[in-house]
C-alpha cells in the first residue's frame, strides 16, 4: 500500500523546453507532430563514415553560439548545449526567475544515455594523434553523464540535490520519477527531463551493437513500430527539459497545475534472458496503482515503440494485458524524431501534456501496417480528437530498463 500522498505535494509540470528534430520549441514540435511532419533526414558528415545507418533525427539549424554564453561553449558537448537551450526555454515558460529563489531549494535531475561522446571522441583523437598536452582540460568535465545536470545547476545557481539517470531510453521517465521524490521531500523546484546527441562515429558505433537500428534507406519505411515489417528504429538527438514543482508551490504563485500533474511512476528491470516474464505489464499496473488510477480511466498510451519484432510484441501484449484488447488509444510520435535516448521519454511526456491541453491524440505518422496479432488500438492515419485527462507514457531502455509514468490534467484535490 502506497503512502498516503498529500495532494499539495503532487508534482506538476509548469514549464516545457524542447529541442528536437521536429522543432526548437514545444509549439513547433507539437505542430509538426500533429501535421505528421518528419524530422528524419539523411545523416551528414558529422556522423562519420558509412556505418550502413542512413537516416536519423538531427536537430536542424541549432546555433549554439547564438544561445549560449561564450565561456560555456568550449567546456561542453553538444548534448549539453541542447539541454541548456531547452532549460532556458522551460524556465522562461514556467515564469520562474531562479535568482529570486533559495539556491538550495532548486535541483536538477537529467537523463543521459551517451554523455559527451562527440566531445570525447575529438579529444581522444587529439590524444592519439598529437599527444596528451593537446587534450582539452575541459574533457574532464564535458564527457561524463552528469555534465548537463552540473552545467544547468551552475548556470542557474540550483544547488539542491542534483542527479543524473543513465537508463538509455527509459531515463527520461526515471529522471522525472527522481524529481518527484525530491519535490515530495521538500525541494521547491526541479529542472528535469533530458537530452542526448549521440551522432559522432564513436557514439553511433556504440549504438550499433544493440542490433536494433534500422538500415533502411527510405525515411518512410525506416522506422515502423508494431508493423509486420518492423526492422528497427532510427536514432535521433535532442529532447525536452521540464520545470516541475509541487502543486501547492505552483498554485501559491498562481501557476495553477501548469501543463498537468505527475500522478504515478514505476520502474522495473527486464532480465528476460534468465527466463522471467517481461516486467512491463507489472510496471504499468504499479504506475497506475501509484496514481490511484484505473486502467479504464486512461485516455492515451504513448508507447515506447522500438520497432523490434520481439520488443514490439512484449509491449503490445503488456498494453493489451493491462488495458484490455484495443482498450486504449496507443500512439508513438517518435517515428518523426527517431529515438532520442536520454531525451526521448521527456519529449513524449511533453507531447502527452500537449495532447491533454489540446484534446487530441497524435497519430503514428508512418505507413504502419500493424501486425495482425497485436490487439492494440494504434492511432494511425491522422490525429484523433478526444478529451485527454489521463495519459500513460511507456519508456524502455536497451538492456532491460522499463518505466511508466501516469500524467493527469490536474493534481488531485484530495489525497
Amino acid at each position, binding site marked *: 500500500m502506497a503512502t498516503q500522498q498529500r495532494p499539495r505535494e503532487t508534482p506538476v509540470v509548469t514549464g516545457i523546453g524542447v529541442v528536437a528534430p521536429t522543432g526548437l520549441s514545444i509549439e513547433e514540435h507539437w505542430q509538426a507532430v500533429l501535421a505528421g511532419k518528419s524530422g528524419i533526414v539523411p545523416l551528414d558528415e558529422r556522423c562519420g563514415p558509412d556505418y550502413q545507418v542512413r537516416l536519423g533525427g538531427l536537430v536542424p539549424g541549432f546555433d549554439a553560439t547564438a544561445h549560449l554564453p561564450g*565561456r560555456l561553449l568550449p*567546456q561542453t558537448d553538444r548534448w549539453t548545449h541542447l539541454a541548456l537551450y531547452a532549460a532556458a526555454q522551460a524556465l522562461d515558460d514556467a515564469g520562474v526567475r531562479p535568482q529570486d529563489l533559495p539556491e538550495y531549494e532548486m535541483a536538477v535531475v537529467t537523463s543521459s544515455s551517451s554523455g559527451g561522446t562527440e566531445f570525447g571522441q575529438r579529444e581522444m583523437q587529439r590524444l592519439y594523434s598529437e599527444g596528451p*598536452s*593537446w587534450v*582539452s*582540460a*575541459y574533457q*574532464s*568535465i564535458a564527457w561524463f553523464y552528469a555534465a548537463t545536470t552540473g552545467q544547468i545547476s551552475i548556470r542557474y545557481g540550483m544547488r539542491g540535490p542534483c542527479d543524473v539517470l543513465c537508463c538509455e531510453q527509459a531515463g527520461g521517465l526515471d529522471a522525472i520519477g527522481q524529481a518527484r521524490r525530491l519535490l515530495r521531500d521538500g525541494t521547491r523546484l526541479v529542472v528535469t527531463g533530458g537530452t542526448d546527441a549521440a551522432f559522432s562515429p564513436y557514439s553511433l558505433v556504440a549504438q550499433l551493437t544493440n542490433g536494433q537500428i534500422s538500415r533502411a534507406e527510405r525515411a518512410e519505411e525506416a522506422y515502423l513500430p508494431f508493423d509486420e515489417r518492423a526492422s528497427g528504429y532510427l536514432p535521433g538527438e535532442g529532447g525536452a527539459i521540464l520545470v516541475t514543482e509541487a502543486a501547492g508551490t505552483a498554485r501559491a504563485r498562481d501557476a495553477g497545475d501548469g501543463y498537468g500533474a505527475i500522478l504515478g511512476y514505476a520502474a522495473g528491470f527486464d532480465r528476460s534472458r534468465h527466463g522471467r516474464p517481461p516486467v512491463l505489464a507489472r510496471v504499468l499496473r504499479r504506475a497506475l496503482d501509484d496514481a490511484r488510477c484505473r486502467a479504464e480511466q486512461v485516455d492515451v498510451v504513448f508507447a515506447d515503440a522500438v520497432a523490434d519484432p520481439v520488443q514490439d510484441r512484449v509491449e503490445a501484449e503488456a498494453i493489451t494485458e493491462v488495458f484490455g484488447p484495443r482498450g486504449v488509444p496507443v500512439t508513438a510520435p517518435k517515428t518523426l524524431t527517431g529515438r532520442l535516448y536520454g531525451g526521448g521519454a521527456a519529449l513524449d511526456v511533453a507531447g502527452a501534456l500537449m495532447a491533454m491541453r489540446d484534446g487530441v491524440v497524435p497519430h503514428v505518422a508512418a505507413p504502419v501496417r500493424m501486425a495482425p496479432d497485436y490487439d492494440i488500438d494504434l492511432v494511425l492515419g491522422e490525429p484523433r480528437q478526444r478529451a485527454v485527462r489521463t495519459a500513460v507514457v511507456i519508456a524502455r531502455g536497451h538492456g532491460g530498463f522499463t518505466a511508466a509514468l501516469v500524467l493527469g490534467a490536474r493534481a488531485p484535490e484530495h489525497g
Partner: protein
Amino acid sequence: MRTFTLDDFRSAMRSTAGVDEQVDLDGDIADVELAALGYDSLAVLEAANHISRTWQVPIPDEVVLDLATPAAVVDFVGQQLERQRLSAAEA
C-alpha cells in the same frame, strides 16, 4: 625576437576558454584577477596548455594555478622565452 604580449594572452583566451559576455577582454585587464574575468582554474589550465604548445615554452601545472592575473601570465611566459634565448646563446 619573440615576445609574449597581453594581446597574445587575449587571443589565447579567445581561442580556448572563450569570453564571458560581461567582460571586455580588450579593456585594461592586465592586473585584473583571472577569476574576475570569468576564468576558473580549468580555463587557465586550458589556456596555459595552448600557450605552452604554440609558444613552445614549458608552463608546469603547479605554476599555472599561481598565475593570478594576465600580467602574471605575460611575465611568466616572457621569462620562459628569455631563459630559452639565454640557453640558446650559451649553446
